[in-house]
């Protein structure tokens, strides 16, 4: 027997089989991604045209189904309003957690609730807004775009707050100490030193929350509902890409189904662009810090 005995062929076989399986399963994981992208392009590109983006859906069962203008604009409006609600509040909560609450008991409770919020299914957020703002006849009990934005904001809030907390904690304490030691009041330390330093991370977190909100359908079903016409009135029903797609899927007409594919392609493209921008900002941040 040589001094360096080889390991048994069985062990080697097991090792190779196991590694092969892991590799194969990884490829399996990527198959859906490839297929989704493939079909989106295959079936969706055909629907894209100038008219597609400049016409509203007509709601006709016969003839021209129209485009997705109101849905696209609606998504942009709804998400913009939701961002205006969620991002300041999310960052504010994160600032409180990191700068004031720190390790105290109240902070733990707040963190717990934020954690709870991250796990709530998006349809339940829709229900929450529905029962408080629609059912109760708030203002006039109607479906309204801004109520849909409120539901989306609830969804975005924990994402922004969590990412914000992580990023603010990364700001070195030495910076805060230096600013405090100069005789700066704490609020100035936060607004002039901490927040600017954390800004790239905060932007990334916010953009990821936006990308998430853009794709959500369930919260809008019973809050913003849908209309066909382009609208800039957030106090009335508003269309959106996900709702339009959801409705088109259930329609047997071929042109309408194709419109669904085209809308899906548009929606995914939008989300991808925002995600890429978010990653770009994150990458830039890591090259700035010395």
């Amino acid at each position, binding site marked *: 027997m040589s001094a360096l005995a080889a390991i048994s062929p069985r062990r080697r076989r097991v090792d190779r089989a196991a590694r092969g399986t892991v590799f194969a399963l990884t490829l399996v994981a990527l198959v859906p991604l490839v297929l989704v992208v493939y079909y989106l392009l295959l079936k969706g590109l055909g629907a894209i045209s100038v008219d597609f983006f400049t016409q509203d859906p007509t709601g006709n069962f016969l003839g021209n189904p129209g485009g997705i203008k109101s849905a696209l604009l609606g998504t942009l409006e709804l998400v913009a309003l939701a961002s205006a609600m969620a991002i300041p509040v999310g960052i504010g909560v994160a600032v409180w957690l990191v700068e004031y609450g*720190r*390790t*105290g008991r109240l902070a733990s409770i707040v963190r717990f609730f934020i954690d709870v919020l991250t796990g709530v299914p998006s349809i339940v957020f829709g229900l929450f807004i529905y029962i408080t703002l629609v059912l109760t006849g708030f203002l006039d009990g109607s479906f309204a775009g801004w109520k849909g934005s409120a539901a989306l904001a609830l969804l975005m809030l924990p994402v922004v707050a969590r990412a914000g907390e992580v990023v603010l904690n990364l700001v*070195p304490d*030495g*910076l805060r*100490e*230096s*600013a*405090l*030691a*100069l*005789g*700066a*009041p704490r609020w*100035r*330390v936060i607004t*002039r*030193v901490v927040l*600017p*330093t954390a*800004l790239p991370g905060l932007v990334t977190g916010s953009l990821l929350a936006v990308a998430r909100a853009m794709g959500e359908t369930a919260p809008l079903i019973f809050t913003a509902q849908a209309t066909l016409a382009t609208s800039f009135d957030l106090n009335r029903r508003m269309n959106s890409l996900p709702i339009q797609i959801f409705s088109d899927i259930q329609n047997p007409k071929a042109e309408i189904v194709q419109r669904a594919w085209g809308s899906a392609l548009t929606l995914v493209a939008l989300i991808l662009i925002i995600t890429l921008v978010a990653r770009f900002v994150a990458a830039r941040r890591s090259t*700035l*810090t*010395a």
Partner: protein
Amino acid sequence: MNPPDPSTPEGTAIPGSDAGQADGESLPAAVRRPVPAHHAAESADAPAADGPAVLVRDLNAFYGSNHAIRGVTIDYRANHVTAMIGPSGCGKSTVLRCINRMHEEIPGAYATGKIMLDAQDVYASDVDVVAVRRSIGMVFQKPNPFPTMSIYDNVAAGIRLTGTKGHDLDERVERSLRGAGLWDEVKDRLGEAGLGLSGGQQQRLCIARTIAVEPEVILMDEPCSALDPIATLKIEELIAELKERYTIVIVTHNMQQAARVADHTGFFLLGELVEFAVTENIFQNQRDSKTEEYVTGKFG
């Protein structure tokens, strides 16, 4: 560097000054600050006043229930450099942070006792910590210029953050950078990022930032331990210049540095001040055996 003061420590009976007031009654500012001849822009020359600028009386500091600093009483003489030395964990940094009340920024930490600055107890109940820190500046171990700001903005940060109006900002930035010995090296690139400087330059930038606020006292917490020997030397030379205008308290774990820069030195052990004397005496003529053991390297 000043020659060692032959008088006894604790600032009693200094010939030539009309102080001799060891408990720090206030003197007009112009009297207390000797103005070297080449600072022509300053106001009237005045006799050197060597009364203590900061008096610490029976300071006790706690981290939660951990009694870290016990009954420390010490005088920091105006326009002198006082060093605090001692082994790791002896509390010298804690004492330093109590002077500008940074100690209490740690959750659960607090301090009791009196620390007098210009006849005011900085621990008095109606005193605002923010104002204390404008009069007492601090330079930290790790240079930390604000990463989102240029060199100019870093120096101006102190002025802007404290909310004082900066109508002569350019002038003050230049003065501070000169005072920190950095002006010539950066005057052509004031707009560049503060982080682009070398370690030693960054630390001098932080010093410039600190003196831009025009404190009376500058606290230094191991300012050179993150720097190379050449940068360290530059900072030590700077300290010798700075003490003409400020009172300097420096914490250092490097005994040789204390011997080089400090007029007076205090030796700390386990949260207590063991011995305080003229620097020469701490190193050659100790009164306490523990001091002798530490400076000769038997422990620490």
